[in-house]
Protein backbone atom coordinates (compact mmCIF):
# COMPACT_ATOMS: atom_id res chain seq x y z
CA UNK A 1 0.00 0.00 0.00
CA UNK A 2 1.25 3.45 -0.88
CA UNK A 3 1.25 6.20 1.75
CA UNK A 4 -0.48 8.61 -0.62
CA UNK A 5 -3.59 6.41 -0.65
CA UNK A 6 -4.45 7.51 2.87
CA UNK A 7 -6.72 10.54 2.99
CA UNK A 8 -5.80 13.04 5.66
CA UNK A 9 -7.79 16.18 6.37
CA UNK A 10 -5.96 18.18 9.03
CA UNK A 11 -8.81 20.65 9.56
CA UNK A 12 -11.51 18.05 10.19
CA UNK A 13 -12.85 17.82 13.74
CA UNK A 14 -11.68 14.20 13.79
CA UNK A 15 -8.03 13.93 14.94
CA UNK A 16 -5.58 12.70 12.30
CA UNK A 17 -4.69 9.50 14.19
CA UNK A 18 -8.39 8.60 14.21
CA UNK A 19 -8.77 9.33 10.47
CA UNK A 20 -5.93 6.90 9.75
CA UNK A 21 -7.30 4.24 12.11
CA UNK A 22 -10.82 4.44 10.60
CA UNK A 23 -9.44 4.07 7.07
CA UNK A 24 -7.40 1.04 8.05
CA UNK A 25 -10.48 -0.53 9.64
CA UNK A 26 -12.54 0.00 6.50
CA UNK A 27 -9.87 -1.05 4.01
CA UNK A 28 -9.12 -4.20 5.96
CA UNK A 29 -12.78 -5.07 6.63
CA UNK A 30 -13.53 -4.76 2.94
CA UNK A 31 -10.55 -6.88 2.01
CA UNK A 32 -8.93 -4.07 0.02
CA UNK A 33 -5.86 -4.57 2.16
CA UNK A 34 -5.09 -8.27 2.09
CA UNK A 35 -3.55 -10.41 4.81
CA UNK A 36 0.21 -9.95 4.97
CA UNK A 37 0.21 -6.79 2.86
CA UNK A 38 2.89 -4.36 3.96
CA UNK A 39 1.87 -0.93 5.21
CA UNK A 40 3.88 2.19 4.46
CA UNK A 41 6.34 2.94 7.27
CA UNK A 42 5.55 5.64 9.80
CA UNK A 43 8.15 7.80 8.13
CA UNK A 44 6.69 7.31 4.65
CA UNK A 45 3.26 8.41 5.82
CA UNK A 46 4.71 11.37 7.74
CA UNK A 47 6.72 12.51 4.71
CA UNK A 48 3.89 12.02 2.21
CA UNK A 49 1.41 14.07 4.22
CA UNK A 50 3.74 16.37 6.22
CA UNK A 51 2.24 15.15 9.46
CA UNK A 52 3.86 14.36 12.78
CA UNK A 53 5.33 10.81 12.84
CA UNK A 54 4.07 10.40 16.40
CA UNK A 55 0.50 10.75 15.12
CA UNK A 56 1.04 7.97 12.57
CA UNK A 57 2.67 5.77 15.22
CA UNK A 58 -0.31 6.26 17.46
CA UNK A 59 -2.74 5.14 14.74
CA UNK A 60 -0.60 2.09 13.90
CA UNK A 61 -0.24 1.23 17.57
CA UNK A 62 -4.01 1.28 18.08
CA UNK A 63 -4.56 -0.77 14.92
CA UNK A 64 -2.04 -3.29 16.22
CA UNK A 65 -3.79 -3.44 19.60
CA UNK A 66 -7.08 -4.12 17.79
CA UNK A 67 -5.50 -7.00 15.94
CA UNK A 68 -5.77 -5.32 12.54
CA UNK A 69 -2.02 -5.05 12.03
CA UNK A 70 1.00 -6.93 13.22
CA UNK A 71 4.61 -5.91 13.44
CA UNK A 72 6.95 -8.21 11.56
CA UNK A 73 10.63 -8.04 12.28
CA UNK A 74 12.44 -6.44 9.37
CA UNK A 75 9.23 -5.88 7.41
CA UNK A 76 7.45 -3.31 9.53
CA UNK A 77 3.69 -3.34 9.84
CA UNK A 78 1.60 -5.81 7.82
CA UNK A 79 -2.08 -6.64 7.79
CA UNK A 80 -2.63 -9.26 10.47
CA UNK A 81 -3.66 -12.78 9.59
CA UNK A 82 -6.98 -13.10 11.39
CA UNK A 83 -8.22 -9.67 10.44
CA UNK A 84 -7.97 -10.61 6.79
CA UNK A 85 -10.67 -13.21 7.29
CA UNK A 86 -13.88 -11.77 6.00
CA UNK A 87 -15.55 -9.86 8.78
CA UNK A 88 -19.09 -10.66 9.74
CA UNK A 89 -21.81 -8.54 8.22
CA UNK A 90 -22.62 -7.10 11.63
CA UNK A 91 -19.04 -5.96 12.08
CA UNK A 92 -18.97 -4.27 8.73
CA UNK A 93 -22.31 -2.62 9.39
CA UNK A 94 -20.96 -1.27 12.69
CA UNK A 95 -18.34 0.66 10.73
CA UNK A 96 -21.11 2.60 9.03
CA UNK A 97 -22.61 3.76 12.32
CA UNK A 98 -20.99 7.25 12.47
CA UNK A 99 -22.00 8.36 8.94
CA UNK A 100 -25.49 6.91 9.45
CA UNK A 101 -25.93 8.90 12.64
CA UNK A 102 -24.77 12.07 10.89
CA UNK A 103 -27.19 11.41 8.06
CA UNK A 104 -30.03 10.81 10.50
CA UNK A 105 -29.42 14.14 12.11
CA UNK A 106 -29.43 15.97 8.80
CA UNK A 107 -32.65 14.23 7.74
CA UNK A 108 -34.30 15.45 10.97
CA UNK A 109 -32.99 18.98 10.51
CA UNK A 110 -34.41 19.05 7.01
CA UNK A 111 -37.69 17.59 8.31
CA UNK A 112 -37.77 15.03 5.51
CA UNK A 113 -39.98 11.93 5.74
CA UNK A 114 -37.95 8.76 6.30
CA UNK A 115 -39.49 6.86 3.39
CA UNK A 116 -38.38 9.54 0.90
CA UNK A 117 -34.80 9.33 2.10
CA UNK A 118 -34.85 5.54 2.14
CA UNK A 119 -36.18 5.43 -1.41
CA UNK A 120 -33.36 7.70 -2.58
CA UNK A 121 -30.79 5.65 -0.70
CA UNK A 122 -32.17 2.48 -2.26
CA UNK A 123 -31.72 4.06 -5.67
CA UNK A 124 -28.10 5.01 -4.90
CA UNK A 125 -27.43 1.46 -3.79
CA UNK A 126 -28.79 0.24 -7.10
CA UNK A 127 -31.89 -1.58 -5.86
Amino acid at each position, binding site marked *: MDASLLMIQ*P*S*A*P*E*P*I*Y*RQILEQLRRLIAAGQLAEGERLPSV*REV*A*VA*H*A*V*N*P*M*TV*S*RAYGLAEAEGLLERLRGKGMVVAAQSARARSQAERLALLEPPLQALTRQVKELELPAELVLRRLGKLLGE
Partner: protein
Amino acid sequence: MAESSAAYPPIMVRGLRHSYEAHPALRGVDLQVRQGTVLGLIGRNGAGKSTLIRALLGLLMPEAGSAWVLGEPALQLTDRVKERLAYVPQQPEAFPWLTAEQMLRFVGQFFPRWDASFAKDTLSRWSIPSTRPLVKLSPGERQRVELIRALASRPEVLVLDEPAAALDPVARRDLLREVALRAGEDGCTVIFSSHIVSDLERVASQVALMHEGQLRLHCELDAAKERYARLWLPAQFTAVAPAAALSRRAQADGSLTLVVERDAGGRWPEVVQMAGARLDALGLEDLFVEIAA
Protein backbone atom coordinates in the same frame (compact mmCIF):
# COMPACT_ATOMS: atom_id res chain seq x y z
CA MET B 1 12.18 13.70 34.84
CA ALA B 2 12.69 9.99 34.27
CA GLU B 3 14.46 10.46 30.96
CA SER B 4 18.19 10.76 31.38
CA SER B 5 18.55 12.78 28.18
CA ALA B 6 16.31 15.52 29.50
CA ALA B 7 16.44 16.10 33.23
CA TYR B 8 14.56 19.37 32.66
CA PRO B 9 11.92 20.40 30.15
CA PRO B 10 13.63 22.25 27.26
CA ILE B 11 11.30 25.20 27.77
CA MET B 12 9.87 26.34 31.05
CA VAL B 13 8.06 29.58 31.82
CA ARG B 14 6.74 30.71 35.22
CA GLY B 15 4.41 33.61 35.98
CA LEU B 16 5.41 35.80 33.03
CA ARG B 17 3.96 39.30 33.08
CA HIS B 18 4.73 42.14 30.77
CA SER B 19 3.12 45.28 29.43
CA TYR B 20 3.74 47.94 26.82
CA GLU B 21 2.93 51.47 28.06
CA ALA B 22 0.37 50.24 30.57
CA HIS B 23 -1.18 47.88 28.01
CA PRO B 24 -0.81 44.37 29.44
CA ALA B 25 0.62 41.93 26.87
CA LEU B 26 1.29 38.97 29.19
CA ARG B 27 -0.90 38.51 32.24
CA GLY B 28 0.67 35.62 34.10
CA VAL B 29 1.75 32.85 31.73
CA ASP B 30 3.02 29.42 32.87
CA LEU B 31 4.19 26.95 30.28
CA GLN B 32 6.26 23.79 30.17
CA VAL B 33 7.19 22.11 26.91
CA ARG B 34 8.53 18.54 26.92
CA GLN B 35 11.26 17.33 24.61
CA GLY B 36 10.04 16.36 21.14
CA THR B 37 6.84 18.37 21.41
CA VAL B 38 5.62 20.51 18.53
CA LEU B 39 3.64 23.22 20.27
CA GLY B 40 1.30 25.19 18.03
CA LEU B 41 0.75 28.62 19.52
CA ILE B 42 -2.40 30.26 18.22
CA GLY B 43 -4.12 33.52 19.07
CA ARG B 44 -5.38 36.71 17.50
CA ASN B 45 -3.14 39.62 16.59
CA GLY B 46 -2.08 41.30 19.80
CA ALA B 47 -2.92 38.25 21.94
CA GLY B 48 0.67 38.20 23.24
CA LYS B 49 2.19 35.37 21.16
CA SER B 50 5.29 37.25 20.01
CA THR B 51 5.84 38.79 23.44
CA LEU B 52 5.68 35.33 25.00
CA ILE B 53 8.16 34.00 22.44
CA ARG B 54 10.57 36.88 22.99
CA ALA B 55 10.35 36.57 26.76
CA LEU B 56 10.87 32.83 26.78
CA LEU B 57 14.00 33.24 24.65
CA GLY B 58 15.40 35.99 26.88
CA LEU B 59 15.09 38.67 24.19
CA LEU B 60 12.89 40.75 26.43
CA MET B 61 13.11 41.38 30.16
CA PRO B 62 9.65 40.67 31.58
CA GLU B 63 8.21 42.76 34.41
CA ALA B 64 7.69 39.61 36.42
CA GLY B 65 8.27 35.89 36.14
CA SER B 66 11.04 33.90 34.57
CA ALA B 67 11.90 31.55 31.73
CA TRP B 68 14.45 28.73 31.24
CA VAL B 69 15.73 27.30 27.98
CA LEU B 70 17.52 23.93 28.02
CA GLY B 71 18.02 24.32 31.75
CA GLU B 72 19.48 27.84 31.73
CA PRO B 73 17.79 31.10 32.73
CA ALA B 74 16.63 32.73 29.48
CA LEU B 75 18.20 36.08 30.34
CA GLN B 76 21.65 34.53 30.84
CA LEU B 77 22.02 31.93 28.11
CA THR B 78 25.57 30.68 27.52
CA ASP B 79 26.97 29.96 24.04
CA ARG B 80 26.62 26.27 24.86
CA VAL B 81 22.83 26.66 24.87
CA LYS B 82 22.62 29.33 22.15
CA GLU B 83 24.19 27.02 19.59
CA ARG B 84 21.45 24.45 20.27
CA LEU B 85 18.67 26.98 19.84
CA ALA B 86 17.22 28.55 16.69
CA TYR B 87 14.68 31.34 16.42
CA VAL B 88 13.06 32.84 13.34
CA PRO B 89 11.40 36.19 14.03
CA GLN B 90 8.64 37.67 11.88
CA GLN B 91 10.98 40.30 10.47
CA PRO B 92 14.56 39.13 10.32
CA GLU B 93 17.16 41.87 9.97
CA ALA B 94 20.61 40.32 10.43
CA PHE B 95 23.48 40.72 7.92
CA PRO B 96 21.67 42.85 5.30
CA TRP B 97 24.82 43.37 3.19
CA LEU B 98 25.54 39.66 2.59
CA THR B 99 23.92 37.40 0.01
CA ALA B 100 21.96 34.45 1.37
CA GLU B 101 24.79 32.07 0.51
CA GLN B 102 27.46 34.26 2.14
CA MET B 103 25.36 34.71 5.26
CA LEU B 104 24.71 30.98 5.64
CA ARG B 105 28.39 30.16 5.09
CA PHE B 106 29.34 32.74 7.71
CA VAL B 107 26.89 31.76 10.45
CA GLY B 108 27.44 28.06 9.72
CA GLN B 109 30.89 28.29 11.28
CA PHE B 110 29.38 28.92 14.70
CA PHE B 111 27.18 25.83 14.79
CA PRO B 112 28.87 22.50 15.52
CA ARG B 113 26.10 20.49 13.82
CA TRP B 114 25.68 22.76 10.76
CA ASP B 115 24.14 20.93 7.78
CA ALA B 116 25.68 22.68 4.76
CA SER B 117 24.11 20.39 2.17
CA PHE B 118 20.62 20.98 3.60
CA ALA B 119 21.27 24.74 3.39
CA LYS B 120 22.46 24.51 -0.21
CA ASP B 121 19.62 22.26 -1.42
CA THR B 122 16.89 24.27 0.28
CA LEU B 123 18.21 27.60 -1.05
CA SER B 124 17.56 26.39 -4.58
CA ARG B 125 14.33 24.53 -3.72
CA TRP B 126 12.88 27.66 -2.15
CA SER B 127 14.10 29.88 -5.05
CA ILE B 128 16.25 32.32 -3.11
CA PRO B 129 18.09 34.75 -5.44
CA SER B 130 21.79 33.91 -5.06
CA THR B 131 23.50 37.16 -6.09
CA ARG B 132 21.46 39.87 -4.36
CA PRO B 133 22.29 41.01 -0.81
CA LEU B 134 19.69 40.19 1.83
CA VAL B 135 18.58 43.82 2.11
CA LYS B 136 17.41 43.64 -1.52
CA LEU B 137 15.25 40.56 -0.97
CA SER B 138 11.51 40.69 -0.36
CA PRO B 139 10.36 40.18 3.25
CA GLY B 140 9.13 36.71 2.27
CA GLU B 141 12.48 35.72 0.75
CA ARG B 142 14.27 37.12 3.75
CA GLN B 143 12.20 35.01 6.11
CA ARG B 144 12.78 31.91 3.98
CA VAL B 145 16.54 32.44 4.29
CA GLU B 146 16.13 32.67 8.06
CA LEU B 147 14.13 29.44 8.12
CA ILE B 148 16.95 27.72 6.23
CA ARG B 149 19.49 29.11 8.70
CA ALA B 150 17.42 27.88 11.63
CA LEU B 151 16.88 24.37 10.23
CA ALA B 152 20.47 23.93 8.98
CA SER B 153 21.85 24.51 12.48
CA ARG B 154 20.11 21.27 13.58
CA PRO B 155 18.77 22.86 16.76
CA GLU B 156 17.41 21.08 19.82
CA VAL B 157 14.92 23.89 20.33
CA LEU B 158 13.34 25.60 17.33
CA VAL B 159 11.10 28.64 17.70
CA LEU B 160 9.22 29.97 14.68
CA ASP B 161 7.13 33.12 14.89
CA GLU B 162 4.49 33.13 12.12
CA PRO B 163 6.75 31.35 9.61
CA ALA B 164 4.13 30.22 7.16
CA ALA B 165 3.03 33.60 5.83
CA ALA B 166 6.24 33.97 3.81
CA LEU B 167 5.96 30.64 2.04
CA ASP B 168 4.07 29.45 -1.00
CA PRO B 169 2.13 26.20 -0.56
CA VAL B 170 4.98 23.95 -1.77
CA ALA B 171 7.61 25.55 0.46
CA ARG B 172 5.15 25.57 3.33
CA ARG B 173 4.63 21.84 2.99
CA ASP B 174 8.43 21.40 2.91
CA LEU B 175 8.76 23.35 6.13
CA LEU B 176 6.00 21.40 7.87
CA ARG B 177 7.58 18.11 6.79
CA GLU B 178 10.95 19.20 8.19
CA VAL B 179 9.39 20.33 11.46
CA ALA B 180 7.42 17.08 11.82
CA LEU B 181 10.44 14.85 11.14
CA ARG B 182 12.87 16.85 13.28
CA ALA B 183 10.49 16.60 16.21
CA GLY B 184 9.24 13.06 15.70
CA GLU B 185 12.57 11.45 14.83
CA ASP B 186 15.31 13.63 16.35
CA GLY B 187 13.43 14.83 19.44
CA CYS B 188 13.71 18.50 18.50
CA THR B 189 11.36 20.67 20.56
CA VAL B 190 9.42 23.16 18.45
CA ILE B 191 7.28 26.19 19.19
CA PHE B 192 5.41 27.36 16.13
CA SER B 193 3.08 30.35 16.19
CA SER B 194 0.63 30.82 13.37
CA HIS B 195 -2.72 32.16 12.29
CA ILE B 196 -2.93 29.42 9.70
CA VAL B 197 -4.53 26.84 11.90
CA SER B 198 -4.52 24.03 9.32
CA ASP B 199 -0.70 24.16 9.16
CA LEU B 200 -0.51 23.64 12.89
CA GLU B 201 -3.01 20.80 12.71
CA ARG B 202 -0.69 18.79 10.49
CA VAL B 203 2.36 18.87 12.70
CA ALA B 204 1.49 20.06 16.19
CA SER B 205 1.37 17.52 19.00
CA GLN B 206 0.10 20.15 21.42
CA VAL B 207 -1.82 23.35 21.03
CA ALA B 208 -1.75 26.48 23.19
CA LEU B 209 -4.33 29.17 22.68
CA MET B 210 -3.42 32.68 23.82
CA HIS B 211 -6.11 35.23 24.42
CA GLU B 212 -5.63 38.64 25.97
CA GLY B 213 -2.25 37.84 27.44
CA GLN B 214 -3.20 34.50 28.97
CA LEU B 215 -3.09 30.87 27.92
CA ARG B 216 -6.73 29.87 27.70
CA LEU B 217 -6.05 26.32 26.58
CA HIS B 218 -2.96 24.12 26.52
CA CYS B 219 -3.33 20.43 25.77
CA GLU B 220 -2.61 17.68 23.28
CA LEU B 221 -4.01 18.63 19.88
CA ASP B 222 -5.96 15.36 19.60
CA ALA B 223 -7.44 15.94 23.04
CA ALA B 224 -8.51 19.45 22.07
CA LYS B 225 -10.54 17.98 19.22
CA GLU B 226 -11.98 15.08 21.18
CA ARG B 227 -12.61 16.72 24.52
CA TYR B 228 -14.35 19.94 23.49
CA ALA B 229 -17.46 20.58 21.44
CA ARG B 230 -19.85 23.41 20.73
CA LEU B 231 -23.24 23.16 22.39
CA TRP B 232 -26.15 25.22 21.14
CA LEU B 233 -29.08 25.66 23.49
CA PRO B 234 -32.39 27.22 22.41
CA ALA B 235 -33.63 30.13 24.50
CA GLN B 236 -35.94 28.05 26.72
CA PHE B 237 -33.03 25.94 28.02
CA THR B 238 -30.46 28.63 28.76
CA ALA B 239 -31.28 28.51 32.48
CA VAL B 240 -29.93 24.95 32.68
CA ALA B 241 -26.71 25.73 30.80
CA PRO B 242 -23.64 24.22 32.50
CA ALA B 243 -21.85 26.78 34.67
CA ALA B 244 -18.39 25.60 33.65
CA ALA B 245 -17.78 26.31 29.98
CA LEU B 246 -14.68 27.43 28.12
CA SER B 247 -16.69 30.10 26.36
CA ARG B 248 -20.28 31.28 26.42
CA ARG B 249 -21.97 33.51 23.90
CA ALA B 250 -25.55 34.74 23.95
CA GLN B 251 -27.10 34.94 20.49
CA ALA B 252 -29.46 37.66 19.32
CA ASP B 253 -32.46 35.28 19.44
CA GLY B 254 -31.88 34.44 23.10
CA SER B 255 -30.21 31.10 22.40
CA LEU B 256 -26.80 30.30 23.81
CA THR B 257 -23.59 28.86 22.34
CA LEU B 258 -21.12 27.24 24.71
CA VAL B 259 -17.87 25.35 24.41
CA VAL B 260 -18.35 22.36 26.71
CA GLU B 261 -15.94 19.71 27.88
CA ARG B 262 -16.22 15.98 28.54
CA ASP B 263 -15.82 14.93 32.19
CA ALA B 264 -13.15 12.50 33.42
CA GLY B 265 -15.31 9.57 32.29
CA GLY B 266 -15.62 10.96 28.77
CA ARG B 267 -19.24 12.07 29.20
CA TRP B 268 -20.70 15.37 27.99
CA PRO B 269 -22.73 17.53 30.41
CA GLU B 270 -26.27 16.13 30.83
CA VAL B 271 -27.99 19.04 29.13
CA VAL B 272 -26.74 17.86 25.70
CA GLN B 273 -29.36 15.09 25.86
CA MET B 274 -32.30 17.52 25.96
CA ALA B 275 -34.45 17.66 22.86
CA GLY B 276 -33.51 20.74 20.84
CA ALA B 277 -29.97 20.96 22.21
CA ARG B 278 -27.35 20.49 19.56
CA LEU B 279 -23.75 19.34 19.96
CA ASP B 280 -21.16 19.89 17.21
CA ALA B 281 -17.63 18.53 17.01
CA LEU B 282 -15.14 21.31 16.42
CA GLY B 283 -12.06 21.63 14.28
CA LEU B 284 -9.26 23.65 15.79
CA GLU B 285 -10.14 26.78 13.86
CA ASP B 286 -13.73 26.72 15.10
CA LEU B 287 -12.56 26.13 18.65
CA PHE B 288 -10.18 29.08 18.28
CA VAL B 289 -12.96 31.33 17.01
CA GLU B 290 -15.36 30.26 19.76
CA ILE B 291 -12.84 31.07 22.48
CA ALA B 292 -11.16 34.13 21.01
CA ALA B 293 -13.98 35.90 19.19
